[in-house]
């Protein structure tokens, strides 16, 4: 390692090389797609990127990196010169080599240990196939000097063909590089902007010659080719002209000249620089004319990629962001403090407004420095899909939309894994093979559509495929088979819920584990990761048509909208993503809605039992209540909501009355915030609710991380420090057992069911009537065949039995008072009613055995009663119950008739 090449310079080189590799990947994909039609600009861009990596690698003496990039450069050069056709096989090799380069850059100091022989061999095979010898060198003779340099023959040939001249430039590390404010790398890039670097190295030989090498500046030697003449090259490199020496490669010049003459002539004529017969170092004047043409490529490329960047440490930005936030607070305080003087100080308003504006813009600007386009993640997917589709023999296209949407850097980084997983799933499972697709009358080529967009202050990322969709029933069957859900749970699931089972831990759809997926650590990790970011993921699918996975994410992690709550005189922030809803239980309803199950408080919320925790209790804060009379805060000593101190004798005199007020006073209403922790929900009882504020999360000091209940701290607009509650930590601190509650819920549901069944059994449809005035009876409606109105003169007497003519026959009449201990009907009634009972097992047209005489029909209704035994029970009485506020006797007409001996013919 060269002494000057300190860590920071090398890391610059690595970072820059990575950037190069990242930018050329889409270009390579384009080359593959467009084949021969691809613009030379794209090829040039790729070529230059690899070239500059090679240059740097040579410079820093990273042997493996240099060799591999050199071979790649060789292949790309052939492509550029139109001697090699782009094919999928070729690109396989190029991509594989690219990956090796990436691996080398990942740990640059160990880059020589990365195996690359296979890729190198493949590249060389391609080159050999072109009749090129890799590693062939020619001697370059330094004009006016004694030294010869070994040069790569093919590079020299290519340079000569393009009319370039070869130079050896010597730059002194201190004088020419460091004192100019450059790094060796920057110097190298500068050289690359004017020509092609064949080789760069520290000229140890030159130093060793000298006696006082310590006093001597380290010479860096650059062997490079350019169309510029020496003086201009010196200018371009910002070196004194005497440090540029011309290199002559006679043998190759002749060869190239012969080739050029053999080839079509016009090229030579229009481009005199390609005429190699002038052997001198003097490049032709026209070379300068041609410069714009040569240089057009890079300049356009620079415009196209256009994002000139500056590397800044993230912690610096974080710090700046905090300061900006602070400035905003300071501004607010300032504005508040001096608004009153606006009248007295002329122009103050304008100044304030200006400060206001600048502060806001500055804060926004600093926030933006941390923002990165989602495209940095998206851009890796075309490559992944390309490789996978070749592996799986599928045709898959990737469409990217909204790559410019920006997210906080940390979120972008954490999205890589989840998105990669989703994309792989799409390619592996969702998209069918071309044959299957044809059968389904779809385009044989499948599409994966990545779309990022803003919505409601959040970022949405949708990954849509037009594949086979998710079969909800199959997912459910798999989940049941794996024991992830019980059969009972499965029976009640909606289709949507079934599909969302793919997020369950341990779920995998794959029949067998493939290289690509099916290991069962999949979508649950996606969900966990996304939720960790404060986001949300869901799936929509249509069988046979495709699937869409949607991620919703906050713009930034640093600023989160939070609900500010109060307990006693403490304030806390609860991130809004955790808040499901807010429930307000009026003091008067507490007893009905809040109860205790196994010692824990629960709230009945839409037939669910929601465990409750009192924030004050979990955090060990002394609860206070406001005295309804005076409004003064006082310590609240009640142990639980069910506890009614006021009813206990030991409470001080007068407390009973006061407590009574308290239970209906609005200040003792309960504010319950329903929080979500994973798939569990629970309620947190707080005293007060304040606004929703955007808060800047600050990490907790190590001293209080042990408390678990907090995820951080923040500073409110008024400068007050408050803690941010952690939903999960709070639940575990409160010892919430969600499983117990679920069991309780199930038990209750069953109880409810049984209760409902019982209720149904008690439910009766009855006819309510009166016999003697004020005495009420009912008969079950299903025991009544007909109700008839008769007048007294129709009643005939035979012996002491009464009859009536009914459908041409005599129907015996039954008076209740004859058989039950009830009062007789009024004697003076002109009109009666008859209840003609229905005898079970008898058709409705059969002759009824008798009719029961009553005075008045009151109602036909459904009652839900529990019958009580009657003391004066007689035959035919079922019991008694209160119906419509009156005691009512329930009659069983059949047994009554039996007792009266009227069932003769029927029994």
């Amino acid at each position, binding site marked *: 390692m060269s002494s000057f090449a300190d860590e920071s310079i090398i890391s610059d080189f690595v970072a820059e090389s990575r950037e190069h590799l990242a930018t050329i990947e889409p270009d390579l994909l384009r080359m593959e797609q467009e084949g021969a039609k691809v613009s030379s600009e794209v090829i040039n861009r790729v070529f230059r990127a690899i070239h500059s990596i090679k240059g740097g690698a040579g410079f820093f003496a990273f042997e493996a990196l240099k060799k591999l990039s050199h071979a790649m450069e060789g292949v790309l050069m052939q492509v550029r010169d139109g001697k090699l056709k782009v094919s999928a096989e070729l690109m396989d090799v190029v991509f594989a080599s690219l990956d090796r380069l990436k691996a080398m850059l990942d740990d640059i100091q160990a880059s020589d240990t990365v195996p690359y022989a296979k890729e190198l061999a493949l590249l060389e095979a391609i080159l050999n196939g072109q009749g090129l010898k890799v590693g062939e060198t020619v001697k370059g003779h330094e004009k006016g000097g004694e030294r010869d340099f070994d040069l790569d023959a093919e590079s020299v040939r290519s340079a000569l063909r393009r009319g370039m001249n070869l130079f050896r430039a010597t730059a002194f590390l201190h004088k020419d590089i460091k004192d100019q404010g450059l790094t060796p790398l920057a110097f190298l890039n500068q050289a690359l902007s004017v020509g092609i670097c064949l080789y760069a190295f520290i000229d140890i030989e030159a130093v060793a010659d000298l006696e006082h090498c310590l006093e001597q500046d380290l010479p860096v030697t650059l062997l490079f080719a350019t169309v510029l003449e020496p003086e201009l090259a010196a200018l371009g490199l910002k070196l004194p002209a005497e440090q540029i020496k011309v290199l002559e490669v006679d043998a190759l010049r002749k060869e190239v000249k012969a080739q050029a003459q053999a080839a079509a002539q016009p090229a030579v004529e229009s481009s005199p620089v390609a005429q190699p017969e002038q052997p001198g170092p003097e490049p032709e004047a026209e070379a300068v004319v041609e410069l714009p043409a040569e240089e057009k490529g890079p300049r356009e490329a620079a415009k196209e990629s256009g994002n000139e960047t500056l590397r800044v440490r993230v912690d610096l930005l974080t710090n700046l962001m905090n300061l900006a936030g602070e400035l905003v607070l300071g501004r607010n305080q300032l504005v508040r403090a001096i608004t009153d003087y606006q009248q007295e100080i002329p122009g103050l308003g304008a100044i304030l407004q200006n400060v206001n504006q600048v502060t806001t813009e500055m804060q926004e600007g600093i926030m933006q420095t941390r923002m990165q386009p989602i495209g940095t993640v998206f851009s890796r997917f075309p490559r992944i899909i390309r490789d996978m589709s070749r592996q799986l023999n599928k045709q898959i296209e990737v469409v990217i939309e909204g790559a410019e949407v920006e997210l906080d850097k940390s979120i972008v980084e954490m999205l890589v894994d989840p998105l990669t997983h989703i994309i792989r799933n799409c390619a592996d499972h969702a998209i069918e093979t071309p044959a299957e697709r044809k059968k389904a009358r779809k385009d044989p080529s499948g599409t994966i559509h990545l779309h990022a967009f803003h919505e409601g202050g959040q970022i949405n990322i949708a990954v849509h495929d037009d594949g086979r969709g998710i079969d909800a029933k199959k997912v459910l069957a798999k989940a049941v088979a794996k024991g992830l859900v019980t059969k009972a749970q499965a029976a009640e699931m909606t289709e949507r819920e079934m599909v969302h089972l793919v997020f369950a831990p341990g779920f995998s759809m794959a029949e067998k584990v493939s290289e690509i997926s099916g290991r069962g650590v999949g979508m649950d990790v996606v969900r966990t990761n996304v939720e960790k970011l404060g986001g949300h993921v869901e799936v929509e699918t249509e069988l046979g048509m495709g699937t869409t996975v949607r991620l919703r994410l906050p713009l930034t992690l640093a600023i989160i909208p939070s609900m500010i709550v109060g307990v006693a005189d403490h304030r806390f922030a609860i991130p809004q993503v955790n808040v499901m809803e807010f429930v307000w239980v009026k003091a008067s309803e507490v007893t009905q809605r809040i109860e205790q199950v196994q010692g824990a408080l629960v709230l009945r919320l839409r037939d669910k039992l929601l465990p409750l925790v009192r924030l004050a209790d979990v*955090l060990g804060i002394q609860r206070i209540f406001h005295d309804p009379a005076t409004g003064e805060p006082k310590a609240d000593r009640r142990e639980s909501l069910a506890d009614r101190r006021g009813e206990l004798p030991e409470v001080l005199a007068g407390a009973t009355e006061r407590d009574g007020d308290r239970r209906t006073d609005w200040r003792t209403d309960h504010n319950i915030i329903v929080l979500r922790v994973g798939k569990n929900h629970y309620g947190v009882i707080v005293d007060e609710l304040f606004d929703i504020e955007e808060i800047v999360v600050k990490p907790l*000091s190590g001293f209080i991380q042990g408390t678990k209940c907090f995820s951080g701290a923040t500073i409110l607009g008024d400068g007050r420090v408050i803690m941010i509650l952690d939903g999960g930590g709070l639940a575990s601190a409160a010892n919430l057992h969600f499983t117990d509650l679920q069991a309780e819920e199930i038990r209750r549901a069953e109880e409810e069911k049984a209760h409902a069944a019982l209720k149904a059994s008690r439910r009766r449809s009855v006819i309510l009537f009166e016999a003697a005035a004020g005495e009420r009876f009912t008969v079950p409606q299903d025991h009544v065949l007909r109700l008839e109105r008769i007048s007294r003169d129709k009643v005939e007497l035979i012996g002491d039995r009464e009859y009536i003519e009914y459908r041409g026959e005599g129907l015996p009449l039954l008076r209740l008072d004859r058989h039950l201990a009830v009062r007789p009907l009024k004697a003076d009634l002109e009109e009666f009613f008859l209840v003609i009972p229905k005898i079970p097992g008898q058709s409705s047209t059969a002759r009824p055995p008798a009719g029961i005489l009553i005075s008045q029909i009151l109602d036909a209704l459904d009652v839900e009663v529990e019958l009580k035994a009657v003391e004066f029970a007689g035959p035919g009485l079922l019991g008694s119950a209160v119906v419509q506020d009156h005691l009512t006797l329930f009659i069983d007409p059949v047994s009554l008739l039996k007792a009266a001996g009227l069932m003769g013919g029927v029994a």
Partner: protein
Amino acid sequence: MSQYATFNVGERLFGLDILGVREIIRVFNITSVPRSEAHIRGLINLRGQIVTILDLSVRLGHAPLPVKDSSHIVILKHGANAAQSNGRNQGGTQDLMGLLVDAIGDVVEAEASRAEAPPANLTDAEERFLSGVLKTDAGLLVLLNVQELLSSG
């Protein structure tokens, strides 16, 4: 000669090397942290940075300090904090710490090498957090072991 920032906690006069002190501020709005260790008095907002405040009295095994007019907070220096924590402070070097004290005294100069071992009649807590005593014109100065003070537990 070293310079010591001195302050009172209860009857005692304590000293910290002034190079380890970032600033001294008056007490305002300390947000207490429920469920934290007893000696954590709470958090304050120091120009946008959150500072964790230790109650020195509780740390030394005594009753919490009442906040009086004379009360101050001694904010310890980042660097000193980081260097002395030796990784025992899991919060990292970003944590700012402050000590709640009863009153602020003068800056006194003394020869660090003349510090004597702390007296034998100390409680365990005191023994852990005190590194020595110095006789100065201002009186007997008790030196604090900041590293232990800031270590957890």
